[in-house]
């Protein structure tokens, strides 16, 4: 319990819209041990990025955390004052954004941006800043000469790597990554993943890695969390999920990408598209697209069932005879 770097419980995020509100993250709970690599996967609009922003306290209106706690090293980040958050950011918790081109300041050199981050945390010695900046760039295999470079002078892969270097300036306990590789091609993607994993093993920070491409994290993450419609659909050890997915949605995602080796099979993907969260579903969110749907799925929302060391939100895993669960998402202990 206390050994965890991060404990998220019952986290819910709502977007306030003209015609009401949309529950983008619905009662999500999970925890991270030191040095653990958790991947969060799901389609566009499943709430994975919103969840991540909520954890990092980076949400801006109209998004708002309406419930739950984010305990980071024993402190609840939800509702924490800005200056307290500033003290934590970069130092204990870093975020690497999806598009490094937008996340880096285009009119400042990489070195100047590193300097900003270090100064914000009281490092003022120019010597110290220069040494550390060069050190972190070397860690991500970039020549320290590039501290003088501006973001546009670097390739996509190098930009993304320098973002990671910046995230590691203070050797944080947790690095949150939002699709850091999605703008890169396969070779750069692969080398970045290997690099993240190596750095993680070397420095022991925990990682939350959000991606829509399950195959990318298959060999890198310890645990995999599949999200659908703002909820956890299935969560468990990565290898187990790949070998034997228990939720029909996870199985569908697994079937969605072609393989480079082995027999060439016709694939169908997942029919339909992700649900519109503004229209609250009566039963299971996935029911309209589910190949294994049955009557109960359309009436009540499924809770998370523990299945062989994982949790699965699907009535197929209800061991007991159909028990009617009250219609409240608060009900089932959604903890991992």
């Amino acid at each position, binding site marked *: 319990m206390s050994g965890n770097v991060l404990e998220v419980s019952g986290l819910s995020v709502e977007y306030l819209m003209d015609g009401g509100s949309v529950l983008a993250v619905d009662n999500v709970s999970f925890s991270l041990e030191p040095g653990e690599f958790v991947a969060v996967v799901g*389609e*566009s609009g499943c709430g994975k990025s919103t969840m991540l922003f909520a954890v990092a306290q980076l949400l801006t209106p109209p998004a708002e955390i309406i419930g739950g706690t984010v305990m980071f090293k024993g402190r609840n980040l939800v509702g924490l004052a800005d200056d307290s958050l500033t003290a934590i950011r970069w130092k204990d918790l870093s975020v690497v954004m999806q598009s490094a081109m937008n996340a880096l300041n285009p009119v400042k050199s990489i070195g100047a941006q590193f300097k900003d981050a270090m100064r914000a945390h009281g490092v003022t010695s120019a010597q110290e800043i220069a040494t550390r900046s060069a050190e972190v760039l070397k860690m991500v*295999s970039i020549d320290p000469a590039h501290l003088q470079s501006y973001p546009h002078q670097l*390739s*996509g*892969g*190098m930009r993304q790597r320098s973002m990671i270097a910046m995230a590691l300036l203070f050797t944080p306990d947790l690095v949150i990554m939002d699709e850091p590789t999605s703008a*890169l*091609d*396969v*070779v*750069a*993607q*692969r*080398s970045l993943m*290997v690099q993240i*994993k190596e750095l993680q093993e070397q420095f022991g920070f925990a990682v939350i890695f959000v991606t*829509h*491409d*399950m*195959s*990318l994290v*298959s*060999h*890198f993450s310890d645990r995999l969390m599949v999200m659908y419609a703002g909820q956890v659909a299935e969560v468990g050890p990565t*290898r187990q999920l*790949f070998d034997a997915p228990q939720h029909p949605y996870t199985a*569908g*995602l*697994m079937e*969605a*990408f*072609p*393989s*480079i*080796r*082995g027999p*060439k099979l*016709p*694939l*169908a*993907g*997942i029919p339909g*598209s992700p649900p519109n969260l503004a229209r609250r579903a009566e039963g299971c969110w996935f029911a309209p697209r589910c190949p294994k749907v049955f009557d109960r799925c359309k009436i009540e929302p499924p809770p998370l069932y523990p299945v062989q060391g994982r949790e699965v939100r699907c009535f197929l895993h209800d061991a007991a005879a159909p028990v009617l669960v009250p219609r409240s998402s608060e009900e089932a202990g959604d903890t991992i």
Partner: protein
Amino acid sequence: MTATADPLLRTEGLSKHFRIGNTLSPRTLHAVDDVSFSIGEREIVALAGESGSGKSTIARLLAKIYRPTSGKVFFEGKSVSSMRSRRDRLRYSGLAPMVFQDPFASINPVFRVSHGVMRGLKLHRPELTSEQRLDEAKRVFEVVGLTPAADVLERYPHELSGGQRQRVGFAQALAMRPKLIIADEPVSMLDVSIRIGLLNLMAKLRDDEDVSILFITHDLASARYVADRLIVMYAGQIAETGPMEEVLVNPKHPYTQLLLSAAPDPRAPLGVGAATDRGEPPKVINPTPGCRFRWRCPIAIDACHTITPQLLPIADGHEAACHVAQSGAEVKAFG
């Protein structure tokens, strides 16, 4: 040679150089250098390579957006650069339309999606009456899986998902009765779960509508799923080409091996590939002779530094531009 022997599209020594720098230090960026390939009828050819390897430049050369620095493109045996009149150019762009990478930027957001299709039809098939145009628009929307067609035609782009918009792109292309669709990374911006539907659509267009497709991608797994033939580009040149399965099972060029080893494959038992590559594709500015992959190649020999390897046959229909592979030695660089 008889006319029937001509493939649908053929390029001969196609090159595109861009002048960069200023008058005092003029330099030339070789985006595409001496590329020759062909695309047959009802064939999906995958053009694979990293960012900056010249894939998109080739697409633009074929679509006549760029004019080649040297070399030629032949469509049904006729030189594309000789198509100068408005009528000839219109005809060609109808026969070989393009589908773009970003479905959010390639459709005009202020018009209903019918706008693009109907305009294309009016321009390229003026013989149709407005009623026939609408029927044809409905037909192509149904072919690409946008049903009910009459309803989808009336929507605005923002009402459609990324996958649906990309289907609109294919419908627009299909409305012109093309023989070849130039698809520049048509699935790379889409969610993994949506991609497979588009790949299936491409196979369907080939099988049912007799369309050939040049499928530009950096993902060999998607390429393998639909394509009949593979062309691997590196730094503006063809590194390897051949029948899809043959190249994947038996890759001869170290770069193809690198691409293969980088492709994520969750079905593989375990393990991160030992040989990882931290290199970047070079910008080819004022190149000197020699293999352009030599700086990243773990098996480079002396010849690689001085002689540019030619694309030569290695097996039936399988060609590679690699000195080591051509010497008959086994190539095992990555993976």
